[in-house]
């Protein structure tokens, strides 16, 4: 790819989605954008680039953004965040929200749905403990294509074996030929919406918990700061933010601090009502 074309896509992605495309990711452009060029009738990537320099069709720009957003995911990805959700977040919320019995969770880049559905299954496993409670999971993504996949809730044999315990597969999925379809009792717990993390967040409402894992790494420092500071306005004082293992707020914002003795669980610095996590001794 020509350097001028790389610059063009870099600027386009930054402007439309806030994503930072670094030169080490330039190899992704060829492999991901060639199908887009073909779909829109361009013989080469160069001819698509030329069209983009004019007044491109919004549909073409949307397809380019979708193709370049990373959709790496699996059920219970990294496991630890889900254990921490069950052992730290859930006990706190069950106590702190006992009068309202209402909890809202946002999966901020839900991709093909494995993360929100993992949370839904985890909550279902709690059984009678959550009777009478209303847990609402809102899952958003910038790609309408992955949102459609997520809503469908059907996965390949390979996908259901990455991270998903076999007992959960047996309990919450139905086999449809060589695919595995989530049962409605899990699917109905998640609401999907298209959302760009750079857009105003207030319309999404308040959230007690936000999962924003392995997303911020694709944004530059200023964008990360803006996104996290916007998120803090959506959360009560005792809200929880889950970031990915390679992500941090250090040197970016003071809106959140890492909860001691956790991995990737962030709370507001002024919060005094969440019980500290004790280190488990053998």
């Amino acid at each position, binding site marked *: 790819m020509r350097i001028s074309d790389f610059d063009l896509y870099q600027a386009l992605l930054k402007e439309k989605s806030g994503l930072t495309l670094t030169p080490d990711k330039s190899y992704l452009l060829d492999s991901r954008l060639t199908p887009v060029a073909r779909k829109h009738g361009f013989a080469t990537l160069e001819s698509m680039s030329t069209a983009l320099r004019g007044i491109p069709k919004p549909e073409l720009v949307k397809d380019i953004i979708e193709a370049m957003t990373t959709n790496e995911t*699996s059920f219970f990805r990294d*496991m630890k965040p889900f254990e921490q959700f069950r052992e730290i977040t859930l006990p706190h919320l069950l106590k702190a929200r006992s009068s309202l019995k209402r909890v809202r969770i946002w999966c901020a880049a839900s991709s093909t749905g494995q993360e929100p559905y993992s949370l839904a299954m985890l909550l279902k496993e709690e059984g009678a403990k959550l009777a009478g409670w209303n847990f609402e999971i809102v899952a958003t993504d910038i790609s309408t294509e992955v949102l459609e996949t997520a809503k469908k809730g059907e996965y390949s*044999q*390979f996908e259901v*074996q*990455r*991270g998903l*315990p*076999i*007992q959960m*597969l*047996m309990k919450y999925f139905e*086999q449809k030929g*060589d695919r595995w379809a989530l049962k409605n009792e899990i699917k109905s717990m998640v609401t999907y919406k298209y959302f760009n993390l750079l857009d105003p967040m207030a319309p999404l409402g308040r959230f007690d918990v936000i999962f924003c894992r392995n997303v911020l790494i694709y944004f530059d420092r200023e964008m990360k700061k803006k996104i996290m500071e916007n998120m803090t306005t959506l959360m009560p004082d005792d809200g929880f933010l889950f970031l990915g293992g390679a992500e941090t707020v250090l040197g970016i914002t003071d809106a959140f601090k890492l909860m001691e003795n956790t991995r990737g669980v962030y709370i507001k610095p002024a919060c005094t009502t969440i019980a500290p996590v004790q280190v488990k001794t053998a």
Partner: protein
Amino acid sequence: MPSCLVVDDSRVVRKVARRIVEDLGFACEEAEDGQKAYEYCAKTMPDAILLDWNMPVMSGIEFLEKLRQMPNGNGPKVIFCTTENDLAHIQRAMNAGANEYIMKPFDSEIIESKFSQIGLL
């Protein structure tokens, strides 16, 4: 070092599986059918067993049922690894005492994920 017995009548599958479980830090032994696996377990009980279903002489499910009757036979964590990919087979394996179930084809990520879920890693 924990040990893993790979039971499969395909030499190629055993070779691939051996490489993966050794990379996960297990000492690996192989058996080509359920009967050989049973004889191995009578002498040394492994920590983990990666088990095929359809094999000559003794099938994987028959082996598992016998294993769980043996003294210390509840010790090993058993992960089925088979082309049988329907709910009825999965249910039968779990009822017989399997700890996890892998539907072939598999890769290192799936094995690692399953081993981790049942506390082997």
